[in-house]
């Protein structure tokens, strides 16, 4: 019902083209910002833990930290043969990792830091890894902001990780000393990087009576990989958000003003578009700027929630958009009509929310927590993800069915087109064309997202193009983010009620005959899917 009076229908093809070209330019720009200015989005830094010896076993472990290098470095051993020779016990060996490496420091611009754990375990004929072996890790995390002061403890925990290693060659004496291939284990996740230096101290305590760390094979080394967002990428990203927020905000205000200028109350689709704009703004607002100054660890979780809300809103919008264009004789225009289609979205998002709270929520308290580490947690997490997956499938089935229905109805309308008057036919054709156009744009956006996603997954991250290095991954993030912003922008702009409708809709008769015809057409077609208007429509058709 609202569609007819929208700007998209009353705008000439030329103007529509101009708008399209401008949007396209912005789109190219957003890709270029990521590809040419920003560095790659994240950096992975590999670390190998230094084996320190805790000479006197410290019971008051709290104040005792082992630094792998630099001033006050710990007593080291090169390998465990040395430890055996010196009769050092497992409980006295501390694996120390200093993040970052020498001559570097961390920065708040890194936004987050996650650490992955990998064991180097050598195959030994008589000391193999047991099936389902579990490593118990006693780990502490500390920080300091200059290279001389004492370390301050941030977190301490005793964690368990399931070893999943396989030995690809034959298990013979000949192959002793080769390494198992072990899966990467999630180790730590910190939601902000407020300090300059971090220190990890890891112990693998052995307790034969309790079967702790027995049957875990011959561990040679502990490798960690620290991943953080690149400072340059963060800056470009923030700049983009700071630029996009007012853009979407202004068009939203303009849009809402137009709706309030109308005599009728806003319809569901109009409200939905506005809500979409709101959720986009919610993502856009660059609250992350605060993370540079404040020690807010919940930013990662908050970002997930914002993103989730936007996705849920976008998916709901598509359903309602299709529903309101069905052009059958059903009264919709109410949210409750769509419960069947919206239900899976809400339920799926809720599942993912719970999952995220279980993972990243708990990580606020204990950065070493991982839902995947425990048997029950893994099952629970899988359950949430599977349910969310089912919801997604259900949703897409509904959506595809609705799109199919819309196209069927459109072709139904098409067959009756030749019987109509010329002006009426042209108008119908225009309407259908523009509806299909929007469907195409949506599909194109979705396809672009998928294609770029695949490219960024397959590609090694950057392309060399003459002297320029194009960061494909960054281009993907900024480009796709820009694209959905432009999509929302275009929706707000093109689907805002048009002047022509509410100006002429009052039927003040100083317009020419042509426009009079136009008004009649707009009103009829406007109300194509409303029951009260159907009478008018059928009446009109019978007149013809």
């Amino acid at each position: 019902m609202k569609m007819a009076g929208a700007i998209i229908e009353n705008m000439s093809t030329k103007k529509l083209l101009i708008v399209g070209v401008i949007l396209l330019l912005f789109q190219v720009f957003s890709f270029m910002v990521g590809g040419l200015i920003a560095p790659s989005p994240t950096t992975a830094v590999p670390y190998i833990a230094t084996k320190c010896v805790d000479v006197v076993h410290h019971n008051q472990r709290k104040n005792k930290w082992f630094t792998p290098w630099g001033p006050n470095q710990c007593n080291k051993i090169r390998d465990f043969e040395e430890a055996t020779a010196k009769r050092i016990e497992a409980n006295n060996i501390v694996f120390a990792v200093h993040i970052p490496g020498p001559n570097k420091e961390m920065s708040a611009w890194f936004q987050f830091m996650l650490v992955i754990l990998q064991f180097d375990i050598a195959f030994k004929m008589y000391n193999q890894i047991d099936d389902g072996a579990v490593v118990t890790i006693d780990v502490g995390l500390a920080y300091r902001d200059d290279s001389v002061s004492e370390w301050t403890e941030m977190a301490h925990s005793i964690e368990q990780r399931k070893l999943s290693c396989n030995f690809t060659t034959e298990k013979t004496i000949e192959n002793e000393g080769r390494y198992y291939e072990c899966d990467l284990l999630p180790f730590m996740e910190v939601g902000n990087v407020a300090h300059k230096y971090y220190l990890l101290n890891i112990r693998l305590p052995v307790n034969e009576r309790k079967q702790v760390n027995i049957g875990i094979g011959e561990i040679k080394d502990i490798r960690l990989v620290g991943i953080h967002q690149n400072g340059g990428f963060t800056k470009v990203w923030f700049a983009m958000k700071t630029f996009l927020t007012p853009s979407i905000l202004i068009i939203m205000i303009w849009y809402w003003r137009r709706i309030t200028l109308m005599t009728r109350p806003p319809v569901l689709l109009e409200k939905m578009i506005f809500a979409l704009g709101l959720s986009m703004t919610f993502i856009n607002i660059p609250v992350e700027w605060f993370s540079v100054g404040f020690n807010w660890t919940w930013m990662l979780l908050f970002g997930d929630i914002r993103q989730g809300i936007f996705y849920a809103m976008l998916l709901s919008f598509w359903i309602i958009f299709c529903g309101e264009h069905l052009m059958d004789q059903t009264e919709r225009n109410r949210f409750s009509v769509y419960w069947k289609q919206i239900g899976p979205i809400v339920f799926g998002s809720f599942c993912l929310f719970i999952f995220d709270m279980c993972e990243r929520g708990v990580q606020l308290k204990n950065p070493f927590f991982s839902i995947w580490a425990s048997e029950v947690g893994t099952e629970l997490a899988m359950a949430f993800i599977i349910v969310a997956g089912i919801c997604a499938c259900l949703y897409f089935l509904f959506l595809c069915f609705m799109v199919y229905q819309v196209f069927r109805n459109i072709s139904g309308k098409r067959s009756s087109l030749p019987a109509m008057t010329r002006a009426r036919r042209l108008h119908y054709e225009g309407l259908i064309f523009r509806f299909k156009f929007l469907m195409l744009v949506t599909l194109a956006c979705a396809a672009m997202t998928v294609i770029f996603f695949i490219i960024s997954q397959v590609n090694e991250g950057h392309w060399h193009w003459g002297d320029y290095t194009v960061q494909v991954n960054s281009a993907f993030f900024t480009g796709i983010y820009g694209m959905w912003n432009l999509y929302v922008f275009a929706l707000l702009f093109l689907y805002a009620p048009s002047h022509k409708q509410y100006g002429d809709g009052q039927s003040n008769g100083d317009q020419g005959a042509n426009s009079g015809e136009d008004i009649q057409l707009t009103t009829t077609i406007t109300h194509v899917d409303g029951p009260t208007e159907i009478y008018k429509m059928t009446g009109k058709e019978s007149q013809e």
Partner: protein
Amino acid sequence: MAGAVSPLLKRPPLAPALTVPEGQPVCVSLAVGHQYSSLGTQPILCGSIPGLVPKQLRFCRNYVEIMPSVAEGVKIGIQECQHQFRGRRWNCTTINDNLAIFGPVLDKATRESAFVHAIASAGVAFAVTRSCAEGSATICGCDTRHKVPPGEGWKWGGCSEDVEFGSMVSREFADARENRPDARSAMNRHNNEAGRVSITDHMYLKCKCHGLSGSCEVKTCWWSQPDFRVIGDYMKDKYDSASEMVVEKHRESRGWVETLRPKYTFFKPPTDRDLVYYENSPNFCEPNPETGSFGTRDRVCNLTSHGIDGCDLLCCGRGHNTRTEKRKEKCHCIFHWCCYVSCQECVRVYDVHTCK
């Protein structure tokens, strides 16, 4: 590491210095000791390693903190060589009490020299990359060649991979002395490069997804070094399929230049990844101080094997002696991950076969 190996393995004093096991001098103590405290002694240290050409000396002074890793690299290269050639007539023997650790074997341009140079060169690249991850070297990855100040570069876009740095160190240091225009230099350069390429070829990509709810929306990948045994296996294959070359002399503006050309045109010419040599190996059956062969006398052989480690082949047809030996062995062991094994002691009887 030919370049480095040459001084290490031929020039007397450096050999023990960089080969570590029992020859303890400078670099060894450096490797175990405190890297930072040695910074002050930098000129003394590099100057005290004899056999370095000026370019290597300069390199040593510039990168003194990674010299322990260079030494470590040569060590793991030799260990791997000994593992790969265990039970063969030439078993990568090193002589601890002699200053030239391999003896004269490497003087000739044989397959064995080719292998040793390649594996040592690979070992250096490997060990330097590893030391970067350990934090014992401060100059890795974030090389100062870029225009931006180093700290800023790291904060803006991270650092480049350490692997390139490892290869760079190996190249700078090892190839420094292989700049003569003769055939041997050309061969060493080629084999050194083959060793380094094997490292970069065997790097593998590991990735982690960490997007929304842990989805693969954001994926970060990094290169990992394989176990050095993998490199050893690969180099051994390359040893078996090494290309024989012939020396060609050209007259160039700087004088006579020797280059290498494949001997057999009907074989595929060697690539960057292949080992090359141009002199035949001695058979290593009899001791020969000139070729550096130790002979296989008194070597333990495997009676049941028909391979090269079998008594027939290893003893070069001279036959073998057999004696029985009682050995006390550890058995029924319970292993803990580190440093502690509780075992019982068993006595077992073995037949030991040694070559005549």
